């Protein structure tokens, strides 16, 4: 009860110190007078009476201090005093202060930025209410890509019925192509991307609209009026943030579509579910309309009931799986999801793990690297402070002699550290803020949740934490060193060549060796990641990404009363042939062709075609990815064909033909034992039979790093494509080509949208962007570490030269040449560097094993990375040592001897 009251009183006293001090003075004066008076009454002389009164009172200053301490916040008083002193002394030593703050700002800034990324992806929950209840439901990854990670509409219904763990289950159509929405405002249609989601999508995720409403069940029913929900970004960009947008209708894909709502800024579909892409709008998926029988098209996302754990949901999903049919019309397709490769085919994983789980290891490595940078910065600063402390030995000795306690001096030095690290943290925060703002706008970066990056309370807390930790780290050593010094020696010590100076120098050398070793570890790590990245770039993708670009082609192949689709297929063939021949005629175009899907984007599969006349074993799983293409596509992509390409004669009425890739051909040959192991000319069983007319290179369709899977290419005139991506190979820059090609396309089809021209290289870059991102960050941190280490080396050597000016002067006077002096300084530098490199290389061997899982085609002991690191540090160390060495050799013996 009295404790808070007292605390309040103390704070109050602290704030009004002068009047309270005056009050105490008056009280003490009264005390002495009263005591003197009584002593006089006892018969003492006035002078003796007063003396006795003072003696009985005790040490006046001690009493006042005790009073203040009891009364107010003595520690804070001292701290403020130290603070004033610190600011005065730091502003006197401006150069040192600036360097110290800069070092800390870099170290702390990098730490805050990486922490924010880590916090965003790993620590913070997903931006949905109770997001820990959200799960992603999919089989373990398999060969057949997205098709094997999705479910049919029938399967979705059955899962919803038979699973008991979920409040509700939702999903979205996984196969929308970019630019699938043409917004017609008069003039050329504007391409946009929309994703079909099941009507309960936002209810399951817990997303509320910023404006209007989100989907209701009736929006996804047959015959429902077309509605659309806009993303915040598209609403701002395309509709000028129109506050009255809700209720307005626009011509989208030829249908009057009503805008019913706008999503909040905090929900970005692409950031969560397809990083690096752009999703402008969401539309309701009609579960009972045309896509019903299109096979595996829906990804599943569920929200667990309160109290249900993941451990309970997994067996629940396994018991629901046998009820799920690919298509209820085909009973033999029921239970097909139950098991794949001996593992459950319907497995819930936390949505967060699905989104950011793969990045965990990279992020942890990055976090460690940036911690290493801060450590180097601290060691460096410790070194600088030691040098500064050495110059201030006498000042502190004097203060000690005048009665300051050791504790007080350590406290003073720690206050300095704290001031420096706070200033560094503030600048670092600004730096991190800039970095994060830049990162947030890297939309091409295929990292999830990037657009949600921001500095939050956690990041600020982290900043305070590392600022204090850093201050302790770099301030304690010089502080203790200072306080333990011998008073007498320090006062006598003239600095140069004395014992104290030598001891300092040894300590500083140890610090520099530590720095070099740390930098070495960082460089080896970055080197290994860089080598991995270069290896990834070197991977033969199965196509030639340079000098090719793709554009989305709009076409209308609908034919009335087209019963089996053959009329549409024929019409499609005519349109595509016209497009390709017209585009091929453009000067500078070497090849052109169409595919519905491009590599490294979406994919799908249609089951496993098997060689005719060969029995299919039961234990075969997976199926090839399907692409529907036109003649010329392979040539445009730069993929070589063994056998023949598709031709325009492979139409709806002729023999169905396919191209398959080498891996698939090889796999089938294991069972079919084709003559000469050649698949060309062989038949596959797929209803009517498919003739393999060519075998093509393996294309990396998921990533450069993974294995190329199985692929099969159908003719666009014999199968239904899911859109049309026109690929053009040309040495002309895409920008030059774009306008001509688009004009041609619009000439053929006036409804053609002003689609974006995407270089094929950008698909590869996009796929490699996470690795590139991590590699670049690791390399920057390593570079920063190296720079800091170089500054450290320079500092120590340069300080050593300054300290030994006299000695060097004498040696030169005795006949040492400039070269000998230079050599001796450089030798000292090299000695430090070599010890540091040796220690660092040993540590790197341990560390590199820990990051082995992040490497691609690179051994953790990669000699090139190690050798390059050693050489780089050696060169940098020599450069850092050369400047003081040069200065040493320019010392004028006469001047040096006369000084000091």
């Amino acid at each position, binding site marked *: 009860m009295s404790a808070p009251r007292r605390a309040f009183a103390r704070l109050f006293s602290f704030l009004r110190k002068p009047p309270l001090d005056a009050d105490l003075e008056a009280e003490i004066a009264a005390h002495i007078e009263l005591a003197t*008076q009584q002593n006089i009454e006892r018969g003492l002389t006035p002078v003796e009476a007063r003396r006795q009164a003072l003696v009985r009172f005790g040490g006046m200053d001690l009493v006042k201090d005790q009073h203040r301490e009891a*009364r107010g916040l003595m520690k804070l008083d001292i701290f403020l005093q130290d603070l004033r002193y610190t600011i005065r002394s730091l502003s006197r030593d401006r150069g040192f202060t600036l360097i110290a703050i800069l070092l800390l700002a870099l170290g702390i800034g990098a730490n805050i930025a990486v922490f924010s990324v880590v916090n965003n992806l790993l620590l913070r929950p997903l931006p949905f209410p109770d997001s820990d209840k959200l799960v992603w439901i999919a089989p373990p990854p398999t060969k057949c890509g997205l098709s094997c990670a999705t479910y049919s509409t029938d399967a979705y219904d059955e899962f919803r019925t038979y699973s008991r763990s979920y409040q509700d289950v939702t999903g979205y159509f996984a196969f929308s192509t970019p630019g699938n929405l043409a917004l017609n405002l008069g003039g050329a249609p504007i391409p946009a991307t929309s994703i079909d989601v099941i009507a309960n999508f936002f209810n399951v995720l817990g997303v509320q609209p910023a404006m209007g409403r989100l989907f209701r069940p009736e929006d996804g029913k047959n015959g429902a009026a077309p509605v659309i929900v806009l993303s915040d970004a598209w609403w701002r960009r395309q509709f000028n943030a129109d506050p009255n947008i809700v209720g307005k209708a626009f011509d989208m894909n030829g249908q009057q579509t009503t805008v019913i709502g706008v999503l909040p800024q905090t929900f970005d579909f692409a950031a969560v579910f397809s990083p690096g892409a752009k999703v402008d709008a969401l539309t309701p998926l009609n579960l009972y309309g045309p896509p019903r029988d299109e096979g595996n098209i829906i990804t599943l996302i569920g929200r667990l009931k309160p109290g249900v754990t993941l451990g309970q949901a997994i067996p629940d999903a396994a018991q629901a799986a046998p009820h799920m049919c690919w298509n209820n019309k085909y009973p033999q397709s029921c239970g097909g999801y139950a098991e794949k490769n001996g593992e459950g085919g319907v497995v819930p994983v936390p949505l967060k793990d699905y989104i950011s789980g793969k990045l965990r290891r990279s992020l942890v490595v990055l976090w460690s690297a940036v911690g290493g940078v801060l450590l180097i910065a601290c060691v460096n600063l410790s070194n600088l402070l030691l040098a500064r402390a050495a110059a201030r030995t006498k000042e502190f000795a004097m203060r000690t002699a005048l009665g300051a306690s050791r504790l007080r001096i350590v406290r003073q030095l720690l206050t300095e550290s704290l001031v420096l690290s706070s200033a560094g943290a503030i600048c670092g925060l600004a730096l991190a803020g800039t970095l994060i703002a830049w990162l947030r706008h890297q939309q091409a970066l295929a990292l999830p949740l990037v657009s949600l990056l921001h500095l939050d309370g956690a990041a600020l807390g982290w900043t305070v934490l590392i600022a204090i930790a850093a201050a302790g780290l770099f301030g304690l050593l010089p502080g203790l060193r200072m306080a333990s010094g011998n008073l007498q020696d320090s006062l006598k010590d003239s600095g140069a060549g004395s014992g104290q100076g030598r001891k300092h120098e040894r300590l500083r050398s140890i610090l520099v060796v530590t720095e070099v070793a740390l930098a070495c570890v960082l460089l080896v790590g970055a080197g290994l990641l860089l080598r991995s990245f270069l290896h990834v770039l070197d991977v033969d993708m199965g196509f030639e990404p340079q000098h090719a670009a793709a554009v989305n082609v709009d076409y209308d192949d609908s034919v009335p009363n087209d019963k089996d689709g053959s009329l549409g297929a024929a019409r499609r063939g005519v349109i595509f042939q016209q497009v390709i021949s017209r585009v091929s005629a453009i000067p500078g175009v070497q090849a052109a062709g169409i595919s519905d899907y491009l590599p490294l984007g979406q994919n799908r599969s249609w089951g496993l075609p098997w060689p005719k006349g060969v029995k299919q074993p039961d234990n075969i799983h997976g199926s090839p990815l399907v692409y529907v293409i036109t003649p010329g596509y392979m040539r445009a992509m730069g993929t070589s064909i063994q056998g023949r390409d598709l031709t325009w004669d492979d139409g709806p009425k002729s023999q169905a033909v396919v191209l398959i890739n080498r891996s698939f051909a090889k796999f089938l040959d294991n069972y079919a034992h084709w003559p000469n192991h050649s698949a060309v000319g062989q038949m596959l069983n797929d209803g009517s039979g498919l003739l393999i007319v060519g075998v093509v290179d393996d294309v990396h369709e998921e990533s450069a790093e993974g294995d190329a899977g199985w692929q099969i290419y159908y003719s666009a005139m014999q199968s239904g494509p899911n859109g049309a991506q026109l690929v053009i190979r040309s040495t002309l820059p895409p920008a030059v080509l774009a306008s001509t090609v688009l004009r041609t396309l619009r000439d053929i089809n006036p409804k053609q949208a002003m689609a974006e021209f995407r270089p094929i290289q950008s698909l590869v870059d996009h796929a490699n962007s996470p690795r590139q991102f991590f590699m670049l960050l690791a390399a920057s941190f390593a570079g920063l570490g190296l720079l800091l280490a170089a500054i450290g080396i320079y500092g120590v050597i340069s300080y050593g030269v300054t300290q030994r000016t006299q000695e060097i002067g004498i040696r030169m006077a005795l006949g040492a040449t400039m070269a000998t002096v230079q050599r001796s300084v450089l030798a000292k530098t090299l000695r430090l560097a070599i010890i540091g490199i040796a220690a660092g290389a040993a540590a790197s061997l341990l560390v590199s094993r820990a990051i082995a899982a992040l490497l691609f085609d690179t051994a953790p002991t990669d000699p090139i990375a190690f050798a390059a690191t050693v050489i780089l540090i050696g060169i940098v160390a020599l450069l850092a040592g050369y400047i003081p060495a040069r200065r040493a050799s320019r010392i004028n013996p006469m001047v040096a001897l006369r000084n000091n």
Partner: protein
Amino acid sequence: MGESKLDLLQGTLDLMVLQTLAAMGSQHGYGIARRIEQASGDDVLLNQGTIYASLVRLQQRGWIAAEWGASENNRKAKFYSITRAGRKQLAKDAAYWQRLTDVMGRVLSMSEKGGAQ
């Protein structure tokens, strides 16, 4: 200075001050200090100045109140008096001390008997 004098235990001075004020009513710092010295038979090692830290502590806790006034020979001095909360606290602390000294007395006397060789 008198080595045989008692060093004050932490917190005991506060209790002495409270008791003094309870017994004497309103009193200034010097008066309290003298009174404690007299009551303890000059057995306590007390720099009179020490009393002021104790006074401010007690005041901040609300156990004593202070007011400037005039002393018997008309000098300006700050007078302290115990509050109701202070009396309650005094009763509590005094009881505690009583128990502690009783226990200490018993324990120490026991050790004298038991320690006989």
